[in-house]
């Protein structure tokens, strides 16, 4: 098989993803940012006395879990591998930068989906059935792809200090959580708030999650799915393009 061909590169991307799964899923920062952070944020709002119904809170928790978990793995991989010199090993192998980035995204996407499925099961366990399972699958897939692309995008600055990237990533992630209709319904937001929320892909995922659990939604479902897919493609292309430019400076 021609090593430059797409199937050959996809196989190598999968090899990178398997390596990431073995190494990075249980790293401290990944667990803190990907699992504990959304749980504690949710608990803070749940116990905050606002008396919000579970049908509103659980979709928010699902959105937050997917967002935090899918963006927890990918930003840290490049700096970790840069400092351990293992990135140089990958760079000297017959794999394109795009395939390396794609492999990291696969690992991140699977981590996001895996953790979020647990959250969905918790929702079902506390008595909130999933009304539209197929839409939830589609939303989880595109949401995880989109957020993992955001994660790899955050790792573009060519620093090999993971904490620097984690700090940058927190700077972006927290504002996004607050403008995306997780804790305040979009319908109750002022018009400028809704305009701002429209720029966040998390808004569309949360809207879909809310539809799946309660049947309510702000945007139409095709718009939510279409925009989530569009964000995924745009972020994926952007992250591959930018990593190609910055990777030599990281090595």
């Amino acid at each position, binding site marked *: 098989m021609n*090593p430059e061909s797409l199937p050959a590169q996809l196989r190598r991307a999968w090899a990178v993803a398997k390596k990431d799964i073995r190494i990075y899923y249980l790293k401290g920062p990944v667990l803190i940012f990907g699992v504990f952070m959304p749980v504690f944020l949710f608990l803070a709002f749940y116990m905050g006395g606002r008396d919000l119904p579970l049908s509103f809170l659980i979709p928010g928790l699902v959105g937050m879990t997917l967002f935090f978990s899918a963006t927890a793995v990918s930003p840290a991989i490049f700096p970790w591998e840069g400092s351990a010199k293992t990135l140089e*090993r990958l*760079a*000297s192998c017959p794999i*394109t930068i795009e395939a390396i980035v794609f492999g990291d995204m696969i690992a991140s996407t699977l981590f996001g989906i895996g953790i979020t499925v647990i959250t969905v099961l918790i929702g079902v366990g506390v008595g909130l059935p999933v009304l539209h399972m197929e839409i939830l699958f589609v939303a989880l897939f595109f949401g995880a792809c989109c957020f993992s692309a955001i994660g790899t995008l955050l790792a573009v600055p060519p620093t090999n200090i993971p904490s620097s990237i984690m700090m940058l990533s927190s700077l972006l992630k927290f504002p996004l959580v607050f403008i995306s209709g997780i804790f305040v319904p979009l319908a109750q937001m002022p018009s400028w708030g809704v305009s701002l929320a429209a720029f966040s892909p998390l808004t569309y995922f949360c809207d879909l999650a809310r539809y799946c659990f309660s049947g309510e939604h702000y945007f139409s479902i095709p718009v939510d799915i279409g925009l989530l897919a569009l964000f995924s493609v745009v972020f994926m292309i952007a992250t591959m393009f930018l990593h190609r430019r910055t990777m*030599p400076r990281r090595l």
Partner: protein
Amino acid sequence: MTEIISARGLVKTFGANRAVDGVSFTVGEGEIFGFLGPNGAGKTTTTRMLTGVIPPDAGTATVLGHDIRREPVLAKQDFGVVPETSNAYTDLSAWQNMMLMGELYGLPRSLAEERSTDLLKTVGLHGKKDQKVQAYSKGMKQRLILAMALVHDPRVLFLDEPTGGLDVQSTQMILSLLRDKNREGITIFLTTHNMEEANRLCHRVAIIRRGKIVAIDAPERLKMAIDRVHRIEVSFDREVPDEALGKVSGVAGVKRTGDKYVLDVLGRDAAIRSLVAFAGENNLQIVTLNTLAPTLDDAFLRLTQEGGP
């Protein structure tokens, strides 16, 4: 001889520092090519450009006929790299690292397993193949890196200081494996500080100083080329005045070290004949007579010192 590696006018600048300044050379098929130079001379940067890890600012590099910038995947498919710093995944076992390499080079699983087993046995790590690499010693890590670089049976091997700081056992194992692989036809590009290693292993060596190649030749020719004045060490059964030895035909200088005399001579053969005649005329017995060839260390020091040739 088929050209396997070719560097033409490679340039790399970091800020105001021109680390590599117009480096050009070729390496033929089946050669062991040594790349020598003092710290900061540009050896590692050149190797990293040749292996496609960093792009050159100017110039071109081809490996096995593939331009490393235009066809990086095709070029990398047929070479292996042993970098200066061990870079196996320490959270994985040796076996998992080998399998990862197999997958990154597109090997079928069964072939990767077969080769990994053979290679790990060769480098003495098969018994610890399931142990995480973080528990390995420096020598074990370096042997693993070499095995990882060979898993796809490459035609070319790039090694950057492969034996730096290793114990004798690991060093001998690595050098022996390199010789075996070279006999099987692998072309080797070796960056090293170790002159003895380069002298014993390499067919040709290039010496780089401040980013520029200052000499490329076979080690023996390089050693001879640096000094037109040769040295002879001689001792007699009794003391001889320096002045008397200085007057012997062909002797340009005399230095006494202990009971021996080190003579700078213009031609070895003529000087030895003159010394024998001198001993006969003065009823002296020659106790020792050694020709002192310049070492590769001498060549390296001469060629890399400031204002050298």
